[in-house]
């Protein structure tokens, strides 16, 4: 009798474990995209570049790119990051042209392509500003898993937003992230890595 109930208990336990394992596998198969978490960042978008050209994710294929989300009325993180980008481009020398650098405005209400052009040209003319309608902005923000929210101030508003820069490889897949305040040497090493990877695969 005792042995029977132990066996029954063990059988139930085994069934439960098997069910959990199967469930986990199913959930993972269903929700985890091929290529793991890296594949969660990036994807299709259509935006307007600061020179008025329409630009999509397909136009970026073949070259690695660094993408940052911000706005021009941002007093600290955005200009600091763009200054760091300009400094990195200078250090990369000719290799900087083997990459693209993108600044996406999360403030389409106040930023315009012209404003982005003027703003970014004071860092490096090769940084491309991306502007979109509210819907287009929403789409690219979602694709890159970026957080942003409008915060009211007495007379206007400011925007909280992700301060991390995404480094995408030549296939448009997330390769690295560059944190705000990360050491320049470490950031440069990451850029060189994706440039080298693209070069190896004939990019």
């Amino acid at each position: 009798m005792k042995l029977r109930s132990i066996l029954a208990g063990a059988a139930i336990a085994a069934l439960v474990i098997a069910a959990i394992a199967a469930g986990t596998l199913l959930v993972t198969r269903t929700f985890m995209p091929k290529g793991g978490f890296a594949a969660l960042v990036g994807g299709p978008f259509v935006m307007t570049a600061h020179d008025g050209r329409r630009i999509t994710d397909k136009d970026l294929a073949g070259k690695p790119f660094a993408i940052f989300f911000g706005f021009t009325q941002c007093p600290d993180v955005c200009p600091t990051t763009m200054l760091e980008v300009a400094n990195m481009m200078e250090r990369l020398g000719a290799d900087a042209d083997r990459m693209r650098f993108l600044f996406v405005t999360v403030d389409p209400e106040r930023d315009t392509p012209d404003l982005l052009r003027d703003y970014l040209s004071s860092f490096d003319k090769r940084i491309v500003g991306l502007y979109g309608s509210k819907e287009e902005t929403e789409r690219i923000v979602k694709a890159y898993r970026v957080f942003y929210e409008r915060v009211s101030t007495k007379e206007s508003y400011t925007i909280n937003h992700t301060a991390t820069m995404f480094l995408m490889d030549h296939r448009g897949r997330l390769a690295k992230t560059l944190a705000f305040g990360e050491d320049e040497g470490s950031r440069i090493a990451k850029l060189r890595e994706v440039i080298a990877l693209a070069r190896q695969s004939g990019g």
Partner: protein
Amino acid sequence: MPAGGGLDNAPFDPISFKDFGDDMKSNLSKFAAAALVCLATTAVEAADYTLGSLKISTPWSRATPAAAKVAGGFMVIENSGKESDFLVGGSLVRSGRVEIHEMAVVNDIMKMRELPEGLEIKPGATITLKPGGYHVMFMELKEPLAEGDKVEGTLIFKKAGTVKVSYEVRPRGAKGGGHGGHGGHGGKH
């Protein structure tokens, strides 16, 4: 210039009559050096302001990118009084209006908020307004801030009232700390 200060601080060798005439040039250059030190001292002190029991040291800002409509104002505020005071506002000649903000990067997200009650400076406290933290935010900039500019403005405290200050514009990317603006590579123009 502090009382009793002045030339006491200058590397001013007493001119001995024995030397006098031997090397007039040397003495003249010593005098010039002393005068320069004196001027420099004045310049440093011009960046410190006292308002009641509040001391505001070296207000500074950063050169702005083209088309930028905002800039941050930074400084150190010391309260040697017995009660709290609040930095509630201010002005800048080149800016439409000014807000008092707190900024932080939390979990990779840049968060900024206006301090509706102002920035509290408790008795005995020293608060540093710096990039990445508390700052005076200049909104609606009418013209850019260029490195080396001195820009006039005011700071308004709830209890102590208003004080005129001059912001020294440091290079883009300056991180603060110390006088004269270090840090930042300047980037391309």
